[in-house]
């Protein structure tokens, strides 16, 4: 019982903090719109339908970046003694980790929802059943993304170090995922790398569910992102249990 209440406590804190940081919501909605309306429109003038094509990619990109960035807040909690306050409570570390994961997923889903509101502009008509599926796929995918951020946050001591590491994580995951270009006719080595990248399957599923034209079977997509998220949860709970505190 107390684990559940602890989980709720962590989630509630993360959610409230998110709602109170207006700048965080604003900035997270701003850059994807820039991608869609400037980058998408610009390149779209050369390649017809490009703006539509990257719409699902931008949804995944936005939620990927903010999910991973969310891990930086662990470092702030560490710098103050807030993290100690949480860790000294009788709540298990794995519960704290799950509370944080679902907190981060909630934040990212809100950002994703803002972008889904723009669907009509891209002439994408979403069926209700598809919307439910989109949320299910996004949820599973984001659990994995947020876990990556938290793992990095639990290891790093400084925000600078965190920024450096995530730079090496974010962009490869994005560029090698088919979010911004077709992955069907790539040179051999790129094909291999994109097939290894789990984000590819997330983007593929979201694309299939929004504008259609997925490369893989949706069940395969789901299987792979589920396996990915479970492995990240596994590593994340381990990283949290090993997280060392300075006295």
């Amino acid at each position, binding site marked *: 019982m107390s684990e559940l209440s602890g989980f709720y*406590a962590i989630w509630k804190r993360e959610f409230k903090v998110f709602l109170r940081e207006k700048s965080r919501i604003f900035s997270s909605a701003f850059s994807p719109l820039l991608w869609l309306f400037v980058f998408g429109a610009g390149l779209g003038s050369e390649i017809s339908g490009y703006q539509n094509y990257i719409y699902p990619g931008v949804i995944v990109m936005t939620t990927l970046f903010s999910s991973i960035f969310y891990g930086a807040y662990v470092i702030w909690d560490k710098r*103050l003694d807030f993290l100690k306050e949480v860790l*000294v*409570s009788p709540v298990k570390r794995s519960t704290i980790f799950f509370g944080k994961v679902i907190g981060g997923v909630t934040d990212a889903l809100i950002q994703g929802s803002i972008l889904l509101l723009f669907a009509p502009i891209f002439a994408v008509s979403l069926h209700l059943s598809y919307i439910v599926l989109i949320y299910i796929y996004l949820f599973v995918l984001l659990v994995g993304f947020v876990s990556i951020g938290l793992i990095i946050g639990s290891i790093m001591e400084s*925000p600078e170090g965190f920024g450096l590491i995530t730079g090496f994580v974010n962009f490869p995951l994005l560029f090698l995922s088919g979010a911004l270009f077709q992955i069907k006719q790539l040179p051999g080595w790129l094909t291999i790398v994109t097939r290894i990248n789990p984000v590819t399957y997330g983007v593929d599923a979201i694309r299939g569910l929004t504008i259609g034209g997925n490369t893989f079977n949706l069940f395969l997509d789901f299987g792979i992102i589920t396996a990915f998220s479970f492995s990240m949860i596994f590593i994340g709970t381990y990283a949290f249990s090993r997280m060392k505190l300075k006295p």
Partner: protein
Amino acid sequence: MSAYSKKTIRVIQISIVKVKNLRKVFEDKEDIVAVDNISFEIEEGEVFGLLGPNGAGKTTTLSMLATLVKPTSGTAEINGFDILKESHEVRKSIGIVFQNPSSDDLLTGYENLELHGLLYGLSKDIREKRIKNVLDLVDMEERKDDQVKKYSGGMRRRVELARGLLHDPKILFLDEPTLGLDPQTREHIWNYIERLVEEKKVTVILTTHYMDEADRLCDRVAIIDFGKIVVLETPEKLKRDLGGEIIRLKIKKPNLQKVKKLKYVENISKLNDTVSLTVRDANRHLQEILKVIGKVESVESRSPTLNDVFLHYTGREFREEGAEGGFWERIADYRSKR
């Protein structure tokens, strides 16, 4: 300190904290021995102080007792539970107020307390009742719905004190409770600590590097230096054992040989140009001392403080500033980057 806690020591005599050969070596920091084989016991209802300069090992000791840092060897029993084998039970028995700000400053004072109540699994009814009670105790009822970032340093500490008590712990840990606060605010915080000790009848372990703080709040004090307990006694006895008043003289060439022959001089220590003498009946003998010691620049006579005790036992002056940084600097640092 409260009259209650002193009485309890004499009547009940139950050790609620038993520390056995606790030791911590930081391997990643060139094998620094932060805590070196310390043992002590604390009785129920007592206010116990760990006093020492920065880096003496106080906070490390506290972190080990709070199960946040694993000891290299040795163990401790808190409220009958072993810190290594029963850490979950230990955590339920203790409340802790950390050295650095540890509340979320985007949340209100009330929300921080609510969060704490949920973490400790308090049901809604109990939670709300206790929050009201502890907010009353630290006079923060009025400001409870303001975000913590709008609080002063003292208010923030008060809310954190309240929070430490919310789940009714048997033992309250206070890590440098007034670090970086101005003198007036420190006085207030001391009053609140005294009040909660009296009303909640909680056992308190506090760390401090302020002599006056230990003197004012603690029933017993362990002076820690380089990870070892130098002496453990009541502040009164520590001061009394020095055997008299302190005379401090600023003098270039003291004639210490002659002073040593005076029977009423109990102790002599010298640091640069300053000579400290512990003298029985100092007021009567001052004239004579001044006659034999030589040409004096200035003289000061007063009753001994814990500072003198520290100097007496370690041979070093007690420095108050250090590398740990103030409370406000950390908040400023945190805010500018968040």
